[in-house]
């Protein structure tokens, strides 16, 4: 029973990361109807930036300063990618978009190794790795959940109570009508990308102390993020967050009690395919009816 509780709590902690990535994926999916396959690599690159800001060989800033600077840099970077790379091909076929996402994936992955070399790096945590409750959860993992929840609340408040959040929702839901009432849809898309990149960077900075910082650290994590987004429903940010936590717990249960740690990624693969086949709308998603 102890093991069960321990695995569930630890699943909640990694679920927090998956929830962040799932949320980032859903934000971009809602804005442009595409999966950002480079989301994980963007987050990884942001984390490298944070590392550079903190490291003694870099700028040597304290953690929380680096944390917020990194979020701002990621926000600007994400918005810039939308404006520079995606805006010109907004009308191109699906394949072109997928190719550009894969191109970004490849570029960020190698750029990180290229600039910061491929050796795994230690990433500091402001919470420390000491146990919060002995045998159940460490301070860092508790911090992960805490930071995620605070961030989610902020994002919820942003979309729910600010005019610009409303404008962004309008631009995503009905771009034509939004444009007619004077919303700059292109600008809103860039904002959405910026937010997604910022959320992703938080996920990267939270998970790096556990996985170590390497160019490939987000590959598996992104897969769980996608699984979370699919389970929760691609059209529902709340669903994505719930889905992310569910996938985190499920991953730990399956890994410990059913298939063993070696098939954890296969669990995500099966989960994605089964949900897409059986309930494509996910838990909270809206069923999209297409007119033929």
């Amino acid at each position, binding site marked *: 029973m102890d093991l069960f509780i321990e695995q569930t709590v630890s699943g909640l902690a990694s679920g927090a990361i998956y929830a962040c990535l799932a949320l980032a994926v859903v934000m971009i999916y809602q804005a442009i*109807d*595409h*999966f950002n*396959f480079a989301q994980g690599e963007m987050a990884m690159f942001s984390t490298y930036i944070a590392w550079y800001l903190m490291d003694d060989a870099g700028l040597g800033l304290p953690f929380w300063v680096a944390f917020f600077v990194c979020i701002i840099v990621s926000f600007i970077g994400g918005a810039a990618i939308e404006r520079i*790379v995606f805006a*010109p*091909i907004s009308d*191109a076929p*699906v*394949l*072109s978009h*997928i*190719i*550009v996402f*894969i*191109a*970004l*994936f*490849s*570029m960020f*992955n*190698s*750029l*990180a*190794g*290229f*600039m910061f*070399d*491929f050796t795994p790096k230690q990433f500091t945590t402001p919470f420390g790795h000491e146990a919060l409750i002995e045998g159940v959860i460490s301070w860092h993992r508790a911090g992960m959940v805490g930071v995620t929840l605070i961030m989610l609340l902020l994002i919820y408040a942003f979309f729910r109570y600010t005019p610009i959040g409303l404008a962004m929702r309008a631009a995503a839901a009905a771009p034509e009508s939004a444009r007619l009432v004077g919303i700059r849809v292109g600008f809103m898309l860039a904002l959405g990308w910026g937010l997604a990149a910022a959320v992703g960077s938080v996920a990267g900075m939270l998970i790096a102390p556990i996985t170590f910082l390497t160019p490939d650290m987000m*590959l*598996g994590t992104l*897969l769980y993020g*996608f*699984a979370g987004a*699919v389970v929760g429903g691609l059209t529902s940010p709340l669903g994505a967050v719930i889905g992310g936590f569910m996938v985190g717990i499920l991953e730990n249960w399956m890994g410990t009690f059913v298939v*063993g740690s*070696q*098939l*954890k*990624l*296969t669990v*995500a*693969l099966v989960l*994605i*395919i089964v949900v*897409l*086949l059986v309930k*494509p709308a996910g838990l909270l998603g809206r069923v999209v009816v297409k007119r*033929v």
Partner: protein
Amino acid sequence: MASTDMAGKSVPAFLNQNPKDRILVLGVPLPLLERVCLYVLLAAVVVLPMVYDGYDIYEFGKILMYMLAVLGLNLLTGFNGQFSLGHSAFFAVGAYATAIMMDQLGMPYWATIIPAAAVCFVAGFLFGLPALRLDGLFLALATFALAIATPQLLKYDGIAHLTGGVQGIVLDTPYPPGWVDSIVMSITGEELSLDRWKYMFTAFVAVIMFAGAWNLVHSRTGRALIAIRDNPLSAKTMGINTSMFKSAAFGVSAMYTGVAGSLFAIMDEYLAPESFTFAEAIKFLVGGVIGGIASLFGAIFGGWFVLEIPNIADLAASSLENYINNPQGLTGLIYGLFLIFTVYVMPMGAAGLAQILVHKISTRR
């Protein structure tokens, strides 16, 4: 069989099928030009091992191997309109099928190609069944997940007695059969080197499979695949069994990439899970897109491109030794830049560029 065209002139049968035949490039009908290109390429494939030896010819073999892998992706994405970011998985299935047959059953390397192709076809067909229900973007997601899960799956302890787990499998050296050796000996008077033989074997398989793809694309089945890509609904209305053709296309595509995997295992005499990561799937996509995803010739260019770029990147890195510490990072960067460049400037890839040139020349007054 010869028939006559509208002007009453006698023309070969293969020139009489579609409007493309009316396109003249410098007075030569386009299909004829394509055939000439094919024969020139074939001649080049035959001549290469006579000229080159050692690492050079090994590289040419690798190009043909990648050409096959890219061809598989082109058949699926370019001709049937289904996306796959997970072809590294089928590449792995082919490679491991060959390796396990050689390692466990003691089969000779040349006998494993056809069974491995069959295994890959079945694997692809089965994956194609659930893929039927997934639209383009969701199929890309499912195959992305497949590609990422594959290396971990290959390392799984439960099948490690077959796959060799993390260590992988070391394979027997593919020595040429005695009769080939003696024929070469009697003609040239020198022994056939292993590198040359590996190339010849790869080229033999690649040429047969390329010819198969050529015929497939230009057949009734090929037109059905293209019709499904262009308009699934009207294809269905015309009586094409879209589900059957789409799953079969997935099977055939997996078979091509899988046979490339088999050749990969045979040529390198070794394989391990780390060779089948998502990076490999990116390579195939790069090759397909840059060569021209809806083109067979494009696959050849794509195969060359993905093999040559790391070499060029290494060369560039070594000349800038003082500034660049991690040359392996350069390849991915160049891949990415070329992908974006291609999408922006020539969405149909190198083959599309050639087509535009042909069009310019043929309509010149």
